[in-house]
């Protein structure tokens, strides 16, 4: 059964995106060079960008269908999104950041689950702090925890390690590997090495189009954009 099915078109000035793919559970890598339209594609899945035409479904739920005029707003999609820059709320403590999605989605408090995620990501010692002075790696772990705690049906990660140096990347990757069994993920990156560790299937995007769909072997057939 396919988890996520995407078939969308969008024109942005000279650039046009036309992508069609399905994913199973596990970690689907959206892999391609910078500027290939990966982020726009993920924003369409999240509901932050509206496609011109097409259809997006998750399990059996329709999120977007231009023919049926369905466009579920972002706040009702229950899709967790970890942005490249974290985007933690600077005016809230780490604990309040983590709790934000649960409160806004009107889910019952679940201290046991919160504790489990906090331990999974090793962020227990940060709960009372504010995001302002945390390291990039700490911030990304909290962003992941915040997205997980809204109990999403899908987790989108858009270059979650791009803003981090090599040491920090090595620090975070094990945490992301632990998430593989938690929730289906779509993981955007132009970095083959990172994806080799975490991906279970690969969709290669080039110039706004799907160039290939397959397994990790697609990560080897690439040029130099990957380090």
């Amino acid at each position, binding site marked *: 059964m396919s988890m996520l099915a995407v078939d969308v078109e969008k024109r942005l000035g000279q650039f046009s995106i036309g992508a069609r793919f399905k994913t199973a559970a596990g970690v689907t890598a959206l892999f391609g060079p910078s500027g290939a339209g990966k982020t726009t594609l993920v924003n369409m899945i*999240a*509901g*932050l960008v509206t496609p011109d035409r097409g259809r997006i479904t998750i399990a059996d739920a329709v999120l977007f269908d231009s023919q049926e005029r369905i466009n579920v*707003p*972002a*706040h*009702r*999609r*229950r*899709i*967790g*999104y970890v*942005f490249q*820059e974290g*985007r933690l*709320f*600077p*005016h809230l403590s780490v604990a309040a950041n983590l709790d*934000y*999605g649960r409160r*806004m*989605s*009107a889910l019952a408090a679940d201290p046991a689950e919160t504790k489990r995620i906090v331990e999974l990501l090793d962020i227990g010692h940060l709960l*009372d*702090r*504010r995001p*302002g*002075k945390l390291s990039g790696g700490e911030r990304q772990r909290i962003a992941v925890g*915040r*997205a997980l705690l*809204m109990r999403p049906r899908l987790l989108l990660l858009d270059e979650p390690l791009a803003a981090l140096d090599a040491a920090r990347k090595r620090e975070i990757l094990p945490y992301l590997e632990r998430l593989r069994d938690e929730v289906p993920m779509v993981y955007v990156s132009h970095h083959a090495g990172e994806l080799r560790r975490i991906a279970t299937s690969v969709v290669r995007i080039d110039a706004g189009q799907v160039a290939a769909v397959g397994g990790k072997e697609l990560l080897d057939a690439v040029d130099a954009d990957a380090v």
Partner: protein
Amino acid sequence: MLDLTPDEWTAILLSLRIALVATIVALPFGVAVAWLLARKDFWGKTLLDGVIHLPLVLPPVVTGYLLLIWFGRRGPIGAFLSDNFGIVFSFRWTGAALACGIMGFPLLVRPIRLAIEAVDRRLEQAAATLGANRAWVFLSVTLPLALPGLIAGCVLCFAKALGEFGATITFVSNIPGETQTISAAIYTFTQTPGGDEAASRLVLVAIAISLVALVISEWLARRAGMRFHGE
């Protein structure tokens, strides 16, 4: 120390009440207008912006006179409000608050608008993906992040309201105990033989109130700023 007469106390308390009420009542409108101007493009936006800023550039007497014509007992808006809701502005302290609120409105809106414009919209997107609808995004992300601007706007509006003279005296006159604010009282004393001493007492009070307001606002703004950058 200052030895204030009961009449002077009345003028001081009345001024504070008028300025506070003007600021508090104007605030929700100010936030709404600031948000519209910061975030929406609509037909007549330039006109709205211009109308709001008009009290800043018009002679205050003109604003007061327009208020008198529209909000007076027999004015179209004033008659409607008094017939239907029993709200009377003319020659009442409420009228003074209205005049002060309108004079202070542009000063209230500007900092809030700038603060809302400065809020990182990507944070609002993040809030949406976490399940917040537009109203909650505004209340839980936009507004708290714009808080320093809100504080600055309120202080400016309050200060303007406290010092307002021309529009108020034109609209609601200078009635001791009802519409005679500190400014109006000082003016009256300067026109009265031997009133210099009373005038200078009130001048000192006005300086003191303004200083205290500035210190409080500085303190609030620093606290609000600290919340974003420290622990």
